[in-house]
């Protein structure tokens, strides 16, 4: 095809950035799909500014999408992109700090006029400086796109809106990405002149790559060796949604999903809403309190209930979650964590809600907590949360976060037939003994109480949030019953341990340093440990998915290492729990900037521990 030279690369990372209106998220997603189909491993990081469209051309309005792909395993979107594609000066200015000197910076030079660079906050023409520091490729994107689309019956604005596809075509050529999936998507989405325009400029971008002298070579990133199977790209939110749908299928029960929209959790609601044919009932409530309350009601009535929200919304749900703890009904609560207290930075990421999950209710109100560690893992974790909820008759909280929610990775689609099917067992009239049905009689092994649902004869019973007598569940005020029920609720959650697999150590079983993590930091930690090992350091790694109860071998594992480093996107919440529990001087690496860890930040922490010991 192309007459230019093709060079091989092991890995590449690219960041597309531009105005919110420039379609950067779309460009990134399509490039990601192409890359996945090319067989690379990959990791992405979409980073958009806020919830509403900021004034065009300002720093506040810059939207970015980064993709890292390779012929080997990829753990993070990469600290620093090899290529930055900037649609305007604001995008360049906002992102340039992450670029290594000499990296490739592809800009739409048409957008670099005086007005625009001043609007971005540059006091003088940035091009001379950029030329010096980076490999600057100046492409008149606007002009080229207009030329490609001349003659079409579209107004200038509609035409200019296509220029991201020109860029996509060009980058696709540059890295030898097959554009089929993008073309198919365009065909399914648009028609008439708009379709024609997008297809034309996409191809024009590719052709421009082939002919322009700006790019003397193109690159090839061979497919990665990955486990055989059928793959797809998936984001964390999509995986959560599908996990919810799958739970209903596998447990053979209708799903009730009570929700109130909130960034970055709303997409889970959106996605599940699209699948009513699975018998799922999504219910958009008037607020988070109604969302969780209706879900608990649904659980009482025998549905598999789930409610999904983020920080502020989870806080509002806590009173009702306390009731769920008290009445011991199964419920899955998903918290897609976002950044900062109060409204904070709704689109940014953080792991600040572990304490909220464990301690955010009044009195002692224990609840199992799980944390997925990758987009695909969100699917598995939701299924597990439902299993625990039903088996132990308890609410379970799942802690995802904004980073997992939006970033995507190739996911090996599980074989549906091998997923564990666990039809639910409700109590029946047989469970009603001589004394009548006892709603707080417990399974001797799990301590779960029976799930007896309205409509079932002879099991009529009343539950509520008042202190109750063991076994009968009758309202009482005596200290002995009170103490006993407090104890039982705690012990029941402890017994979930029986379902918590031991933590596995990656690397040597003992040694100088264990890097421990939980949730979405897995990628960055793995990459950092990998690098450290390549550099000859002896570092092990372990990742926790069951935040409560904790895996029972944790104590023993921590005891085998001289140092334990625990990076968290908070002020050290898990660290505090483990220090207290095990009286071990865990070293906490914290970050609270609304951004995931850079690999280098963790590497530096590793270095500093190993060099000082």
């Amino acid at each position, binding site marked *: 095809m192309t007459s230019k030279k093709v060079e091989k690369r092991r890995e590449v990372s690219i960041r597309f950035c531009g105005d919110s209106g420039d379609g950067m998220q779309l460009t990134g997603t399509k490039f990601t799909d192409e890359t996945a189909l090319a*067989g690379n491993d990959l990791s992405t990081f979409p980073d958009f500014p806020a919830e509403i469209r900021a004034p065009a051309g300002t720093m506040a309005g810059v939207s970015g999408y980064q993709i890292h792909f390779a012929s080997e395993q990829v753990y993070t979107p990469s600290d620093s992109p090899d290529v930055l594609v900037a649609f305007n000066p604001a995008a360049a200015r906002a992102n340039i700090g992450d670029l290594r000197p000499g990296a490739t910076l592809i800009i739409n030079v048409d957008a670099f006029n005086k007005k625009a660079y001043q609007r971005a906050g540059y006091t003088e023409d940035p091009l001379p400086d950029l030329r010096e520091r980076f490999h600057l490729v100046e492409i008149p994107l606007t002009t080229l796109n207009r030329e490609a689309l001349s003659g079409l019956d579209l107004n200038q604005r509609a035409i200019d809106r296509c220029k991201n596809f020109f860029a996509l075509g060009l980058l696709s050529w540059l890295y030898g990405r097959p554009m089929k999936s993008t073309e198919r998507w365009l065909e399914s989405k648009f028609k008439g002149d708009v379709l024609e325009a997008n297809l034309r400029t996409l191809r024009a971008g590719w052709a421009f790559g082939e002919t322009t002298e700006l790019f003397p070579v193109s690159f090839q990133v061979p497919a990665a060796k990955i*486990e055989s199977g059928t793959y797809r790209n998936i984001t964390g939110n999509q995986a959560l949604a599908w996990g919810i749908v799958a739970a209903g299928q596998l447990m053979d029960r209708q799903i009730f999903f009570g929700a109130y929209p909130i960034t970055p959790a709303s997409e889970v609601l959106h996605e599940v809403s699209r699948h009513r044919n699975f018998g799922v*009932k999504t219910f958009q409530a008037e607020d988070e309190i*109604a969302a969780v309350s209706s879900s608990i*009601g649904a659980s009482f*009535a025998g549905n598999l209930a789930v409610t999904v929200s983020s920080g502020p919304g989870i806080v509002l749900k806590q009173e009702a979650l306390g*009731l769920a703890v008290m009445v011991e009904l199964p419920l899955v609560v998903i918290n897609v964590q976002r950044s900062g207290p109060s409204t904070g930075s709704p689109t940014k990421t953080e792991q600040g809600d572990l304490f909220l999950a464990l301690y955010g209710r009044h009195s002692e109100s224990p609840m199992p907590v799980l944390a997925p560690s990758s987009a695909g893992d969100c699917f598995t974790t939701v299924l597990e949360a439902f299993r625990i909820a039903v088996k132990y008759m308890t609410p379970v909280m799942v802690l995802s976060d904004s980073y997992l929610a939006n970033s995507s990775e190739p996911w090996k689609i599980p074989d549906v037939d091998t997923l564990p099917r666990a039809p639910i067992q409700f109590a029946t009239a047989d469970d009603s003994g001589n004394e009548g049905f006892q709603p707080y009689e417990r399974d001797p092994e799990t301590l779960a109480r029976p799930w007896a649902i*309205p409509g079932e004869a002879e099991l009529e019973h*009343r539950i509520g949030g008042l202190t109750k007598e063991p076994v009968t569940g009758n309202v009482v005020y005596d200290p002995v019953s009170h103490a006993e029920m407090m104890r039982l609720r705690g012990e029941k959650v402890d017994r979930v341990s029986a379902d918590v697999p031991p933590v596995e150590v990656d690397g040597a079983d003992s040694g100088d340093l264990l890097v421990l993590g939980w949730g979405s930091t897995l990628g960055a930690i793995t990459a950092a440990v990998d690098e450290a090992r390549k550099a000859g350091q002896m570092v092990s790694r372990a990742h926790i998915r069951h935040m409560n109860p904790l895996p029972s071998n944790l104590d023993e594992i921590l005891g085998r290492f001289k140092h334990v480093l625990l990076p968290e996107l908070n002020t050290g919440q898990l660290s505090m729990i483990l220090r207290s529990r095990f009286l071990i001087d865990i070293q906490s690496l914290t970050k609270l900037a609304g951004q995931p860890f850079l690999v280098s930040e963790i590497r530096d922490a590793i270095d500093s521990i190993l060099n000082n010991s």
Partner: protein
Amino acid sequence: MAAPASELTRKDFVSSQDVRWCPGCGDYSILANVQRVMPEFVDKKEDVVFISGIGCSSRFPYYMNTYGFHTIHGRAPSFATGIKASNPDLSVWVVTGDGDGLSIGGNHLLHSIRRNMDMQILLFNNKIYGLTKGQYSPTSNPGTRSKSSPQGSIDYPLDPISFALGAGATFVARTIDVDATHMQQTLRRAHAHKGTAFVEILQNCPVFNDGVWEDVQDRKQRVENSISLVQGEPLVFGTPGNLRGIVMEGGDPKVIDLDDEDDPVSKGVVVHDEHLESTAYAFALATLTRPECPLPVGVFREQRKATYEQMLEQQIEDATSAQGAGDLHALLHSGDTWTV
């Protein structure tokens, strides 16, 4: 009285729990009447669920030998929504108070009413917070002296009926704790309605707000101070020699005096119609305020509209016939995939 729907009797609905209301509390008679009519409504008591919030009134579910859920303060309608959506075959009853339902829980009540699920909502209005020992509530009369308003309350009260109508209620009624016959009739109507039936029950709290409803509870005063809404009947009240009727003047209701031999309708007295398309008439009735006007009791409005759960089930059906029954394998493989 309607024929019983089942073999069940009142006693089947009495639970084993000691009733813990103060002596003389109006809640006792409400409980008794509800237990009395339930056998007419269901033939299996396991199909009945009572849901409440927190308050004296909200203890109700414990005393009903059905499924029951005593939830948290103000949120009962939301729990009920989840229950009904999950299993539309259940007979779902919400019991709430003026504090539970209209103070902390106003929003859930509003939105539940708006959604029109097929359930009954009974609001026991004693114009006071009973359980927390006597603070004024959103329905308290202006100037109510209570523990939290020693100089008298300065909030304008909320009228539960106007509130429900403003929320778009399809069924709105009012009855009185001490009037067993009327209450049972009203409960029957509420149960028969397909959609959210909102019933305000005037209830005396002898401990913290004794006599607040006396002018309509007392049999003698009641005839002068209340008007019974009966479908197709003119709005006439009072006793012979002192009959009065309600007329509408440009949308505003007014009381006129009637002679005993008058034909009320020809005098312009309105004939009660629950089924008018617009809510305006029912709302006009709700604005009648004592002492100038009588307090209406009975059914203000009944309108048939699709229920939320019907529409929800319909969407599931529609989705299933459009997309086919859910296929998990197909879902996971939808869109772009690749095989290694």
